[in-house]
């Protein structure tokens, strides 16, 4: 048909040059990835949002494992023993209930083990620099892991006959099956890390030799020495420190604990000792000089201990251990009352005169704190207890770095793993003579930043534990494996705080069609030729991925 279109009155719409409205803008939208509160709360800085979204969207467990092990080589382990501070911050908390990140982590870890997944090195070429790692606990192994991935030659010196440190000796099998730990250590070592056991640095090898032979040394000594109470009778037979007791049990020594077992202390070790003793058939009670509120142990552990019918004696403090022919028969305790808070912020316990009484006992386990074994290692300490390190995680000795319980005091496995990772970064920096802020990360997204209208409420995954009467019969793990479908559903509850999950809102809510899908990435991008900066996209973005910024 002819193209006689009267001027101003008819127009061919196929070749119109659009009028650019971008100049009308005073503020512009930007796609900015933000830090989710879970990662923010995780000492190991795991990309939790990353592996949850991967599970939810592509249901790809293998990819999820690789995302998770980018930071943490112990998913199966942490998935069992971590007190999961990540869940504290989860923005779902203000919406319905936080995600069960911990179970997801364990599920991913178990998948990795079952399918013998292997860690990938970040670089193919080997580096000539060598690093010595002292101690094969979570801190040491984490540090070794991250350095090995970067191509450094890493050698671990372990005093014991098997690697794992407190994960092996401190954590009972019903919480962390030994083969799970073994398999995760195994795949770490597969990165080409050399491990020498039964070598105690400072005794079999002097420190200065290591310092000489290696570009850097990492001390992951842990806190292996159980401290005694130093009260009369604490040298009697059947009086153990928590560490001794657990280690003995885990290394398979036969111990006759008799009938009545009294555990002194309120930390995780105390709980572990009590529950192990229970499984050995003891009639166990815990003596703690403050109340439950002040107990440093993980809540879950205290709950499980209570479930397992362990008796808690609060406001009770041992005075002396009653012995008969250097054999424990009881423990004399005094009742305490809490007065105004002390340095630790907890109420200061004060004895009530004349409230003494004897608790009968065949075995007494003293789990009232641990300390570092510095034998042969002369190094600066904090309040004469923990290794002192600077912001670069270096100790008073040049090129000697440290992390884990030995630095932090008693802390969690994931804390130690985080320490190991950051030490690895620091070590690389010192080798490369550079300084980088590895802790730097974009701002954290809080629930007030989200547009929760677009999310549906959903129940949290609830994990079934083995009934008490059965679990007490053995050291079997108390949480049987999870159904992966349930975990994927749980992962679907992730709000993807601070990262686009392609909900289409920005695309559909832009009155100016200024949001396009990038042909290359498939992600949304703004067409600033036309965006008028109204801010609808940012306002309606559920996860706070879009930020409005002033034009300049």
């Amino acid at each position, binding site marked *: 048909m002819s193209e006689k279109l009267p001027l*101003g*009155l008819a*127009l061919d*719409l*196929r070749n*119109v*040059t*659009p*009028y*650019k*409205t971008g100049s*009308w803008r005073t503020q512009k939208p930007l796609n900015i990835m933000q830090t989710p509160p879970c990662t923010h709360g995780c000492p190991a800085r795991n990309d939790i949002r990353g592996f949850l979204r991967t599970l939810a969207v592509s249901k790809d467990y293998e990819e999820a494992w690789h995302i998770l092990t980018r930071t943490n080589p112990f998913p199966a382990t942490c998935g069992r023993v971590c007190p999961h501070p990540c869940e504290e911050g989860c923005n779902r908390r203000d919406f319905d209930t936080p995600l069960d990140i911990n179970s997801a982590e364990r599920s991913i870890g178990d998948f990795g083990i079952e399918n013998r997944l292997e860690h990938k090195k970040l670089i193919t070429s080997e580096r000539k620099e060598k690093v010595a790692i002292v101690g094969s606990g979570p801190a040491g192994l984490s540090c070794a892991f991250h350095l090995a991935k970067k191509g450094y030659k890493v050698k671990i010196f372990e005093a014991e006959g098997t690697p794992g440190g407190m994960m092996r000796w401190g954590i009972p099998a019903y919480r962390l099956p030994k083969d799970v730990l073994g398999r995760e250590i195994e795949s770490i070592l597969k990165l080409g890390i050399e491990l020498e056991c039964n070598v105690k640095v400072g005794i079999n090898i002097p420190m200065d030799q290591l310092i000489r032979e290696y570009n850097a040394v990492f001390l992951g000594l842990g806190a292996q020495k159980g401290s005694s109470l130093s009260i009369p009778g604490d040298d009697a037979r059947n009086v153990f420190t928590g560490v001794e007791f657990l280690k003995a049990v885990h290394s398979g020594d036969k111990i006759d604990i008799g009938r009545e077992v009294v555990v002194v202390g309120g930390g995780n070790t105390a709980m572990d000792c009590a529950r192990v003793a229970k499984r050995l058939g003891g009639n166990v009670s815990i003596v703690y000089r403050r109340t439950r509120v002040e107990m440093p142990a993980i809540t879950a552990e205290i709950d499980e201990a209570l479930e397992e019918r362990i008796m808690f004696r609060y406001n009770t403090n041992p005075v002396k251990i009653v012995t008969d022919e250097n054999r424990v028969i009881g423990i004399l305790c005094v009742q305490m009352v809490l007065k105004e808070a002390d340095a630790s912020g907890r109420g200061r316990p004060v004895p009530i005169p004349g409230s003494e009484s004897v608790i009968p006992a065949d075995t007494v386990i003293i789990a009232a704190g641990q300390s570092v074994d510095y034998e042969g290692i002369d190094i600066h300490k904090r309040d004469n207890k923990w290794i002192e390190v600077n912001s670069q995680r270096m100790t008073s000795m040049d090129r000697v770095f440290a992390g884990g319980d030995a630095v932090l005091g008693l802390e969690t496995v994931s804390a130690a793993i985080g320490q190991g990772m950051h030490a690895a970064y620091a070590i690389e920096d010192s080798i490369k003579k550079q300084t980088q802020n590895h802790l730097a990360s974009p701002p954290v997204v809080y629930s007030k930043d989200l547009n929760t*209208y677009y999310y549906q409420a959903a129940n949290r995954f609830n994990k079934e534990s083995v009934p008490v009467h059965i679990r007490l019969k053995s050291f079997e793990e108390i949480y049987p494996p999870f159904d992966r479908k349930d975990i994927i559903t749980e992962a679907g509850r992730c709000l993807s705080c601070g990262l686009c999950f392609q909900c*289409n809102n920005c*695309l*559909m*809510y*832009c*009155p*100016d*069609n*200024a949001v396009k899908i990038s042909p290359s990435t498939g992600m949304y991008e703004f*067409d600033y*030729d*036309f965006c*008028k*900066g*109204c*801010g*609808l996209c*940012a*306002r*309606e973005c559920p996860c706070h991925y879009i930020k*409005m910024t002033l034009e300049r």
Partner: protein
Amino acid sequence: MIENLDTIEKKDLFASGHRACGGCGQALAARMVADASGENTIACVATGCLEVFSSPYPDPSWRIPFLHSLFENAAAVAAGVEVAYKALNKGPVNIIAQGGDGSTSDIGFQCLSGMFERGHNVLYVCYDNEAYMNTGVQRSGSTPLGTRTTTTPGGKKRLKKNIPLLAADHGIPYVATATVDDYRDLQRKVKTALSIEGPKYLHILAPCPLGWGHAGDLTVQICRLAKQTCIFPVFEIREGKIISVQKVPVKKPVEEYLKLQGRFRNLFKKGTPTTDVAAIQKIADGNIERFNL
């Protein structure tokens, strides 16, 4: 009866480059409608804000055939296109007449009513921004009670015309309401309407940041509140019967909707009788009862 049409459509048939204000609800709605109806569509648009900001020669935003004549005759012009296609044995084609609330409920209502009564196979879409925005926010028959406009400085004293129900009372096969916050629902209704033979009416609440006195980024949220406060019921009427209603499980007080908008500032001035807000709440309560929201 109707297959699931509940997907999103983004074809940019109403393209970038129009002169609407930032956050314009009408521009948003017009694009959602155009994209839902697809390339095989003719848009007959009434004079008004939409027409002015989207069809300046030589760079209009429409990528589907566009026909504008006057303020009050979009429905009749669309009817003309429809009979022409019939007479010439052309088509099938989607014919969508569209206009603002002024051209729909006031000056153009006669043409609209005639089009309905004659049974043309036309979808009429009303972008309701509840006043004459093109000319600078004067009250229209669709302006709600209590609204402040440049011609009702003290707030409108009369009720909003209920065009959807007036349309339904013409006995046309399909009438629906929608808002821009729920694009899936909106686009589904466009497709549903177009799948039905005869006159159809779709009434879309389309906020005007300028006229309503709110920031451009609140357009969607305000639509949501209009539904959550039951001020604007979202429903479908098929052959005179209500076949779907968007339920409002948690009903919010109308204040939450009113307070966000400058046009209702009067209602909250000190010394204003709270009876005004109560009267508006009554309207919402009426909707709750009428549509069982």
